[in-house]
């Protein structure tokens, strides 16, 4: 461990090796919040869904909003990481690991929400006994299970060289590192095996990720409910998912950069590139939102208009216009202005986008259920303390699992950073030269 202190990348080992009071303090608070949400859930289990704000009309509330939101956030990771790896974007190296961890953790939390929404969790087994693949709900189950498996494998395989490094150079959790490293010693053959597996995984994971949020959009768009029955819901949901995921990744990067002093690894250039991605997705999201509403308004179908009015000028107008401000106006103002596009500005925008995207899920789900086609009395949906508690519990669980991960594994891929230093520069130079016109040919033509 002593020689590790002289390692140029000691900063990346430090969170694992050194004790940190702040870590214990944060874990205690998070465990307390999770404990409270477990208590509230047990209460719901005992008394049923009557402890929630759900009613005869609005049968999907906070739990399904959070389900769609968390699964959306999961797109940050694997998708962005796979695209950056495939396109050989050299600046990806300190980012990919964090992105992949977000995916794995958030998928667990998102996947729990439909079970919470069941009220009777024992009925989950009916999916296995009597499931029918004609239902988009079952498509969700299969798509999320596949995505979770693929993204966990995609997180783990590139981590093996780092786990082997920890096995050889630390004394903590050695048995775990031995078990997880599978005897990796960095031989040429082992490197080849990992590279081969990673190249298959990064191609495989992209269509799986895209299919997941498309299928999630189908649970709404396959119904004839006003405001849901739309053909663009698939790409609209995927765009929103990547947008919220990118914002979450930026928040995580900024938080852990500050907490573990990773300024030398997560440089301003990384935030600048990521913020360009955020701006692109902001514009794409705005385009889809505009398109979705314009089509509805132009059609002027009475029930569709009732839902649209409810969102634009009715009870949900404050949420709708907050969403537009947070997802479009603020990103546009901050990310196109050099003075405002600082790390603090990007953090502010990203937090706004996360809130805005959560509001978007709320606006998609609740107004359509409130304004039914049946002549029922409009029932307002007011989430109860149970729902708020479980929402906070979900966020706390995300923070806790991420913190624990950072104490056991490096948050930045050490081998990829070293690989970048050793070979990446030459590789990038060679690649750049291959993009440019051949100088000899150009000079020959000039003569």
């Amino acid at each position, binding site marked *: 461990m002593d020689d590790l202190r002289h390692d140029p990348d000691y900063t990346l080992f430090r969170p694992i090796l050194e004790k940190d009071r702040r870590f214990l303090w944060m874990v205690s608070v998070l465990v307390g919040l999770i404990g409270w949400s477990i208590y509230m859930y047990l209460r719901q289990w005992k008394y049923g869904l009557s402890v929630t704000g759900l009613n005869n009309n609005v049968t999907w509330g906070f739990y399904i909003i959070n389900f769609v939101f968390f699964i959306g956030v999961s797109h940050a990771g694997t998708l962005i990481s796979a695209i950056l790896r495939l396109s050989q974007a050299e600046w990806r190296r300190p980012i990919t690991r964090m992105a992949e961890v977000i995916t794995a953790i958030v998928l667990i939390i998102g996947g729990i929400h439909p079970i919470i929404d069941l009220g009777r969790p024992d009925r989950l087994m009916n999916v296995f006994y009597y499931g*029918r693949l004609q239902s988009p709900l079952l498509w969700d189950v299969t798509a999320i299970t596949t995505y979770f498996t*693929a993204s966990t494998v995609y997180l783990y395989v590139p981590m*093996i060289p780092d786990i082997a490094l920890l096995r050889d150079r630390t004394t903590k959790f050695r*048995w775990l590192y031995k078990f997880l490293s599978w005897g990796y010693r960095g031989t040429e053959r082992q490197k080849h095996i*990992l590279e*081969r597996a990673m190249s298959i995984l990064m191609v495989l994971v992209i269509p799986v990720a895209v299919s997941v949020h498309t299928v999630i959009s189908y649970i709404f768009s396959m119904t004839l409910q006003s405001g849901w029955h739309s053909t663009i819901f698939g790409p609209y949901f995927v765009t929103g998912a990547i947008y919220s995921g990118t914002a979450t990744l930026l928040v995580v990067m900024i938080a852990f950069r500050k907490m573990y002093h990773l300024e030398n690894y997560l440089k301003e250039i990384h935030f600048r590139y990521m913020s360009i991605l955020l701006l692109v997705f902001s514009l794409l999201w705005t385009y889809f939102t505009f398109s979705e509403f314009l089509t509805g308004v132009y059609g002027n179908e009475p029930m569709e208009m009732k839902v649209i009015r409810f969102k634009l000028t009715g009870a949900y107008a404050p949420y709708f216009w907050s969403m537009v401000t947070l997802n479009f106006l603020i990103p546009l103002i901050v990310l196109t202005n050099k003075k405002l596009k600082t790390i603090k500005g990007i953090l502010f925008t990203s937090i706004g986008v996360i809130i805005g995207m959560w509001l978007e899920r709320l606006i998609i789900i609740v107004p359509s259920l409130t304004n039914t086609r049946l002549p029922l009395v409009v029932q307002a949906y007011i989430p109860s303390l149970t729902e708020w508690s479980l929402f906070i519990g979900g966020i706390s669980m995300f923070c806790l699992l991420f913190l624990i991960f950072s104490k056991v594994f490096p948050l930045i891929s050490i081998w990829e950073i070293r690989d970048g230093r050793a070979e990446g520069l030459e590789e990038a130079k060679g690649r750049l030269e291959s993009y440019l016109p051949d100088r000899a040919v150009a000079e020959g033509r000039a003569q």
Partner: protein
Amino acid sequence: MMEKREKVTPQFILFLQIMSISLIWVLVVSVIWWVLNLISLSNYLHDAQNATLAISLLIMPLFVLLAGILTYVFVGLRRNRFEDDEHA
């Protein structure tokens, strides 16, 4: 000194690793079994058989492929751990 502290033997690590590969395949077989059950149910009910078959044909190879990749990595890494190795 580091070796003296080791409480977990290499045999136990190997046992854990064999168990994990086995569990991966148990999971894959369970998923396939479940999907086959869905196909037979849709057939029995004459309910969306084509869609069921199409979705099933997508899911099953994906899980087999993922388990195959993991097995390839795990077995490959263990087998080649001493090749070209200075410390071996």
